[in-house]
């Protein structure tokens, strides 16, 4: 009797200890390094990242895969690969983060990718859109999009819609060139003709020369790509002022032109613009409606969730699901394996992390900017399902 009682006591003691040990392990906070832009002209990006992350954590009681989460955010002040690399190194070595995320600018992502390979730390990219980022390191997975991924479908849709010729205008920097190449390839492959190309400098206060040039060339349609911010509204202002629509020239663009963060400020010049992108604030799914509602409840209505916030939200979701798959093990190789092939529903629609390329596979929508309830919204009316990055597909 005593033996059984003692062994029972011992057994329960052991069990209790094991529980405590297990709980202690589960209570080890998961440290995530968030590298974004919080200052300067692009400070909105960091703000949106924070909002997406905060929303996800709130929904899940501040836990990921049962562990408490500590997000350490660092500012790069824009495109600053030197600082990004240093910050990534410090986050890994000093703050001992297990996962790196954020990364709004492509040069920053490339620089951090190199650190990730050395340190074997997983990187979940929340925005950077250069195609080569996921190829540059085996420890990088991307949740956002690539420029080619949203430019190519626009070309196809335009062809489908009967547009035979296009004049292409892009900003003169790497993503602009990528967009031009992808659009041109898809458009010409489908039998269309690119009748003119323009690369405008990034610092370009006045678009009148370019728009006038297009007006004089009288193409059937124009496709443009500018980074989200002040360039698209400036271009659209001149476009409207010159009466280009009345001249019969159709205008198409990628969704950066009608970025939800800037759409209100852009104003009515964006009305009627047809764009292609992976997220619209007005996406009619139940998940998005809940997402927007929760977002507005927590952050008010002055800041609209843009694709930055949604991707941040999804990145946290991806990390959560991956860690659930690995059973809480946050080591680089295991997490990357778990991320591959991950499929789930995002506020933007269904998304998947391609097992082969670790890049995002998602629906690209064709939207039109309309006034809904007195506000400008990108209303989706067509789509391309399961679009993979065309630049990688071609290889």
């Amino acid at each position, binding site marked *: 009797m005593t033996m059984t009682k003692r062994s029972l006591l011992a057994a329960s003691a052991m069990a209790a200890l094991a529980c405590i040990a297990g709980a202690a392990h589960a209570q080890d906070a998961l440290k995530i390094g968030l590298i974004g832009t919080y200052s300067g002209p692009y400070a909105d990006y960091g703000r949106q990242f924070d909002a997406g992350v905060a929303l996800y954590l709130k929904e899940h009681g501040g836990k990921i895969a049962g562990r408490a989460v500590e997000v350490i955010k*660092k500012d790069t002040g824009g495109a600053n690969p030197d600082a990004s690399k240093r910050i990534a190194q410090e986050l890994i070595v000093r703050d001992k983060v297990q996962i790196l995320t954020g990364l709004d600018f492509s040069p920053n992502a490339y620089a951090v990718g190199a650190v990730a390979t050395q*340190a074997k730390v997983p990187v979940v990219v929340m925005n950077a859109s250069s195609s080569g980022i996921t190829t540059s390191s085996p420890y990088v997975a991307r949740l956002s999009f690539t420029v080619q991924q949203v430019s190519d479908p626009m070309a196809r849709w335009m062809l489908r819609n009967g547009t035979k010729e296009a004049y292409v205008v892009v900003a003169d920097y790497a993503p602009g060139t990528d967009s031009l190449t992808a659009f041109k390839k898809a458009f010409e492959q489908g039998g269309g003709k690119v009748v003119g190309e323009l690369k405008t400098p990034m610092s370009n206060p006045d678009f009148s020369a370019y728009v006038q040039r297009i007006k004089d060339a009288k193409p059937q349609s124009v496709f443009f790509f500018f980074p989200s911010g002040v360039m698209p509204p400036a271009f659209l202002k001149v476009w409207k002022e010159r009466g280009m629509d009345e001249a019969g020239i159709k205008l198409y663009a990628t969704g950066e032109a009608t970025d939800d963060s800037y759409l209100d400020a852009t104003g009515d010049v964006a009305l009627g613009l047809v764009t292609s992108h992976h997220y619209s604030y007005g996406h009619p799914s139940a998940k998005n409606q809940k997402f927007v509602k929760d977002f507005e409840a927590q952050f008010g209505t002055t800041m609209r969730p843009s694709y930055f916030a949604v991707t941040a939200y999804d990145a946290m979701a991806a990390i959560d699901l991956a860690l659930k798959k690995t059973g809480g093990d946050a080591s680089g190789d295991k997490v990357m394996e778990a991320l591959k092939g991950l499929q789930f529903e995002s506020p933007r629609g269904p998304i998947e992390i391609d097992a082969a390329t670790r890049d995002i596979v998602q629906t690209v929508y064709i939207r039109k900017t309309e006034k809904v309830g007195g506000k400008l919204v990108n209303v989706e009316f067509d789509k391309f399902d399961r679009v993979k990055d065309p630049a990688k597909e071609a290889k």
Partner: protein
Amino acid sequence: MKPITLTPGQLRAAEVLFWLALASTFFLAPDHRTLLSQIFIFGLFAVALDMALGYAGILTVGHAAFFGAGAYTAGLLAKHGWGEPFSGLLAALVVAGALGYALSYLIVRGADLTRLMITIGVCVLLYELANRLSAITGGSDGLQGMNVSPVFGVFEFDLFGKTAFCYAFGVVLAMFLLVRLILRSPFGLALRGIHDNRKRMLAIGSPVEARLRMAYGFSAAVAGVAGALLAQTTQFVGIESIGFNRSAEILIILVLGGTGRLYGGLVGAIVYMLVHDWFADLNPEYWMFWLGIFLIAAVMLGRGGIMGALSRRIRTKEHAR
């Protein structure tokens, strides 16, 4: 407060102490090694700028052109098979120096303001060129695929920044001593003379323009080495290295430290980057506000930057700099 007087011997001891203190941060601040190596590199860049700005009196906000030229030189070499670090530095020095000397013909004409705008113009043009030639330079995405060989064939560039620190420190110290040698030579004295009173120098027959061109060339060469260091220690060259913003930032650093004084660039880099990092950690969104206040305070409280303030407190027995 009565100024402290130091003998040249004491001054030299202070200098040695300074460098020893910097070296000791390797052990005292092991988590900040990467930040420290970047501080050294920007310190060298600021010292290079000082050669042109503080000593030769050429007002320029375009020095990132040479920094970037050096960075791309080392970067392209490392990308296309030649990864040996020291020869990369040498190549950067030669390329940047040649570029600087060639451009110096434009710089030595006209008034301060004209020179300022020309240097800005050249810097922006080079930036655009780097952007245009994106097939070679990687454009705005940056130059990747750099393969820098281990230093001396043994020390690899590691994650903890150990090799980067020692490499950067060693090179910066060596280049600093070289710059110091140049500035204390008769050439350097001629430069100071030109800065102080150009007409007089012309009157005594000093070839003013030739001296200014040489100074600008040297300054460009050292800036190029700094750029190459950054490229090699980060194994990446961003197009920002050659941009106007970097030129402006290094000017701020130098002015904060104090122009025309040998250690101005280094002190400026240490203070600016530490303060920037500290503010950015405290407040990622609004560090710029606090940094702006800091800069305004620095100017209102003392002229000539930090070194200027120091020089009012510390006198030397002989007039040796």
